[in-house]
């Protein structure tokens, strides 16, 4: 009887082991690529008609709140590089200007216009950080996700309007490619292995968007028209302003955020 038991146990163990087996490979699947190809229907918008300039500064009033310190001890590889990025990049203020703010045309564009899909954009995982931390792209524009680290990362898109995905990149220099079919702002990306790693993407169905740079400056090229311009920050939320521009016009639009403003992070 005990021999029989032993044989049955051994058989079940083998079944269990086989169930847990993979290919033994260190490659992962590419992320899903939802949606179709380039913008469809009608003539593609001539970008030379976007000759008006909307520029300005995202100011920050008061003392910026300190960013959270990053505890990287959970991964020795990251811990060795902790000095390069000791805190999160949530609030980045230089010369009184707030960086990493997504500025975009939120209304006023001609309905049904089709825009050419730009070339692929890349987000890199380097020293256990996403570079860039905030960026914008168009729907159906290829997004390349690269792992430049000698450690594993997973890219987890916490999308609400687009399908979520979660893909592992266990090998250095591995590149995965995806795209988003629907506009979504913000579309958070994070690494569940390293809790501090997070990035935000603005996905638009038009090309009139940008991210504030050093000193909080930004510039948008738009066609003549009357627009609502929106500025979004991960901690301080959203602000909007109206602007009217003519042919080759230049208008300045300035936004101001303060520590009292609340956004998605709170």
């Amino acid at each position, binding site marked *: 009887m005990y021999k029989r038991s032993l044989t*049955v146990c051994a058989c*079940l163990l083998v079944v*269990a082991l086989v169930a847990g087996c993979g290919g033994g490979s260190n490659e992962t*699947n590419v992320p899903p690529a939802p949606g179709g190809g380039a913008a469809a229907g009608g003539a593609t918008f001539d970008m030379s008609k976007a000759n008006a300039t909307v520029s300005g500064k995202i100011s920050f009033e008061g003392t910026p709140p300190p960013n959270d310190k990053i505890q990287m001890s959970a991964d020795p590889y*990251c811990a060795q590089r902790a000095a390069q990025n000791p805190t999160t990049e949530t609030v980045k203020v230089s010369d009184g200007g707030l960086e990493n703010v997504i500025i975009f045309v939120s209304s006023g564009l001609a309905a049904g216009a089709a825009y050419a899909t730009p070339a692929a954009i890349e987000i890199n995982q380097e020293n256990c950080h996403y570079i860039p931390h905030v960026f914008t792209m168009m729907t159906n524009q290829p997004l390349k996700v690269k792992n430049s680290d000698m450690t594993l990362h997973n890219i987890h898109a916490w999308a609400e309007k687009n399908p979520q995905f*979660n893909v592992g990149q266990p090998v250095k220099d591995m590149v995965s490619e995806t795209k988003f079919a629907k506009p979504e702002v913000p579309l958070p990306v994070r690494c569940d*292995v390293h809790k501090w790693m997070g990035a935000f993407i603005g996905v638009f169905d038009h090309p009139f968007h940008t991210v504030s740079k050093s000193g909080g400056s930004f510039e948008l090229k738009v066609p003549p028209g009357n627009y609502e311009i929106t500025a979004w920050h991960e901690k301080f939320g959203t602000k909007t302003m109206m602007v009217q521009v003519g042919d080759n016009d230049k208008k300045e639009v300035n936004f101001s955020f303060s520590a009292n403003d609340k956004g998605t992070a709170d």
Partner: protein
Amino acid sequence: MSREVADAGLRPSPFAVSEAEGVGLHRFALFTTACTAFLIFVGGLVTSTESGLSVPDWPTTYGWNMFTFPLSKWVGGIFYEHTHRILASFVGFLTIVLTVWTYFGEKRVWMRWLSAAALSTVILQGVLGGMTVLFLLPSPISTLHACLAQAFFCLVIAIAVFTSPRWKRGVPFTGSYNETSSVPALCAATTAAVYVELILGALMRHTAAGLAIPDFPLALGHIIPPFTSNKVIIHFAHRVGAVVVTTMIVWTFVRVARSYSRHFLLFRPALTMMALLGIQLVLGATTVWSAKSTIPTTAHVLTGALLLGTAFLLTLRSYAMLTRKPGNCRGAL
């Protein structure tokens, strides 16, 4: 005839065994129970550290066979998630052995069915665990995964109880032959209340409603909070459930202490339940006050499981000891 059976004036159980016989299976069932409790704790850690999706594939781990995934790569959230998977596989293996052992070593047919139920549950639990990963932690599946874990815990506790030599010898009847005790029904109701409370807790965790009411003992500054969202409703339901469970446990303890304080088989789990309740209430409050800090939150999950297990054990014993059955043989339940 054993001393307890003789003392109680009972016939020996038809499954009466020697002290040594069947002890191995009982000890193995106890070991499986302990491993399951630890597995629930590690599962709680996975949720508390938000590591559930740190390994994006299943049943593989970053493309590796999960059993050959290099130790050097168990970093960050992977450490918790992969440990949970390995431990779950181990408990699954233990359950397979337990089932086979019961099948060949048990004369009671219903015991074989019970262990088969445990095996089916652990397999379903594994599949649910995989689905939580592949479908990116959908709340219904994650909640079901958490609740089934507690049900499996009760199943292995039952196997451990039913295979114990004491149970097989025949638990002494300590009730009255003239009246039916309501204590077993009360214990069963308490166990059910604890389980419902655990379901609410799991729902709260997996819908991110743990801090929907960030203050305690008040709720959003009121005794009854404004129900502004589903998360507030779920969170408050868990708090109301805690009040109900507290009442049930205290009531059960008082009943057992009043009538059966000299019967340690009943009094001891009742007392343990009270102690666990006290710890659980403190941990629940600390979870809110610490804004879901990992250790108190996970300890709250584990203590909830232990509370359920203790209530379930008390229920089994109370039915065996306080309910009249033909032949007076409690071991033959």
